[in-house]
């Protein structure tokens, strides 16, 4: 356990050191991107990994918050109003999503969230008098909380890091709380949970709201990071990218979505410098991970590492071959 805490402290220190260790703004910005997408992926993971509910409309939730913030700022309101309005818009949209989609679970849940996400995208794209259509809305300034400017890459990174750490802590508390256990219960045995007296729908609803809150926070970070929002950020591709982060890293783990976000953002930025075919690669990674490493990179590599460790210790080839083939409990079942 102490090893764990030491590793955690080292990781946090390393994250704090990023702007000092890296002088080039470009890489600090990529680090900010990783952290803000990680917040999004952590929110999606609550639903996908712990609730067993795969959403393909989550970009609509963060997008609603982004648009609300951008709209309020463009209308001349201050940052406090914009952020509060964005959180409210994100949560309201989430409540609407949850009310409609939680009638179903499994595959139907995917279809309904996909359709709902497309509605939000359609509104952003077509409701030109509010959203300025395909041209999007620009945001003139980043906020300056307590007089600290976020205009520079380093300043924004620090703010994003604080939000990210709070999000991770909130997720850890949520997951280890009795409510988190109840949520995992509704994922694995909804009927038994019902028989035990849990209101399955209500448990899922509040998990959805928490997930939506994190998505809205990520949406606010996104709009301040880019200082711009357009319908592209709400497209199905964006929701799928989020899902790829969760699944590639490892759904139902705390570290998985963060690793997944880092993987996707790095591949996207590095690869796009060489080839323009990012969507093809996204699809290919998706297919490969689903087919060959369905439990995700973090649990997958932990499994491989443990198998190798045991094999090396026992010095018995047969033991290495009989590595545990069972999937970890994190894998959501339809």
């Amino acid at each position, binding site marked *: 356990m102490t090893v764990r805490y030491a590793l955690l402290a080292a990781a946090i220190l390393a994250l704090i050191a990023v702007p000092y260790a890296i002088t080039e703004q470009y890489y600090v910005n990529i680090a900010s991107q990783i952290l803000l997408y990680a917040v999004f992926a952590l929110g999606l993971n609550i639903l996908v990994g712990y609730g067993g509910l*795969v959403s*393909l409309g989550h970009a609509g939730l963060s997008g609603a918050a982004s648009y609300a913030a951008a709209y309020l700022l463009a209308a001349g309101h201050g940052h406090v109003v914009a952020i509060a309005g964005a959180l409210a818009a994100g949560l309201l949209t989430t409540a609407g999503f949850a009310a*409609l989609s939680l*009638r*179903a679970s*499994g*595959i*139907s849940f*995917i*279809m*309904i969230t*996909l*359709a*709902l996400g*497309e*509605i939000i995208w*359609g*509104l952003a*794209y*077509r*409701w*030109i*008098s509010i959203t300025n259509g395909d041209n999007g809305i620009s945001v003139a300034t980043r906020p300056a909380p307590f007089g600290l400017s976020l205009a520079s890459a380093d300043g924004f990174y620090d703010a994003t890091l604080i939000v990210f750490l709070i999000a991770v802590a909130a997720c850890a508390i949520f997951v280890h709380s009795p409510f988190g256990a109840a949520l995992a219960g509704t994922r694995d045995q909804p009927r038994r949970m019902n028989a035990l007296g849990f209101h399955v729908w209500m448990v899922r609803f509040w998990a959805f709201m928490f997930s939506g809150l994190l998505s809205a926070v990520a949406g606010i970070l996104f709009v301040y990071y880019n200082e711009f929002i357009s319908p592209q950020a709400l*497209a*199905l*591709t964006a929701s*799928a990218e989020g*899902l790829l982060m969760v*699944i590639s890293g490892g759904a139902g783990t705390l570290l998985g979505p963060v690793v997944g976000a880092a993987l996707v953002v790095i591949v996207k930025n590095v690869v796009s410098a060489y080839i323009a*075919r990012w*969507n*093809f690669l*996204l*699809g*290919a*990674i*998706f*297919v490969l991970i*689903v*087919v060959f490493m*369905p439990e995700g990179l973090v649990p997958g590599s932990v499994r491989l590492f443990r198998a190798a460790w045991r094999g090396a210790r026992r010095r018995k080839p047969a033991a290495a071959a009989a590595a545990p083939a069972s999937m970890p409990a994190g894998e*959501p*079942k*339809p």
Partner: protein
Amino acid sequence: MTFWLLLTVNSITFGGLLFLLSAGFSLIFGLMRIPNLTHGSMFMVGAYLGTTFLSGTLGFTLDFWAAAVIAALEVAILGALMERLLLRRLAGQQLAQVLVTLGVSFMVADLCLMGWGGDPISVATPAGLGGFVRAGPAVFPLYRIAVIGIAVVFAVALWLMLERTRLGAMIRAGVDDPQMARVVGIRVSQLFTIVFGLGAGLAGFAGMIGGPILSVYPGLDQDMLPLALVVVILGGTGSLLGSFVGSIIVGFIYNFGQALLPELAYFVLFLPMVLVLVLRPQGLFGGQVL
């Protein structure tokens, strides 16, 4: 008056196209219990392949109908191959299958962008159907009437296939109860391939038939897929009648919405879906709750 008549005909035409697209989607969902998220891609690939046969870049040009049929066959083979090579490996894992179709849809979209470029390609109306039909003061494009006819012919043919043939009976059995169907000796996994190919082929055919109306452009897949989703949620899964009625309803809402409330057309389109989900979750004609 003429405006409303024209809008009505356009709505029915679009509904017919949607039926060709969503009938396969609904059958695949009914049988395999997965939404095939490549269905929009199949529609787009069919249209792109068809335009290639028309353009003569391959050294020969085909007649519009021949191009449509050959494109549909090719897309059907692609669909069957995808089922055999990818989805079959993940048999029983529906979530993984859905994610694979999503991944493939991105790959296909990017490959199409690579192969055919980013500019929209317009498709010429087939010879002999470029004219107009006069009905009193209104003038209707002949091609749109023809599309309605094609959709009706396909609806009847599909209905006959499902209700009157041995294959249809096996598909119906698979939709109703796959395990029992297996027990009585129906090779359900073979049906998966057949139905997947059939659905993909229909979608590809619809793409080419829709070409003269919609033209072909990157993003066509993402425009059509949600429409198929709405049709199936409205009509109920695995039901041919459901797809037909759902398609007509969506066709009307889409066209009237675009004409009357252009800014909110997309939003209005999803309202009936929301209503159905709240009031009748199994869809208008579906047997199973979504």
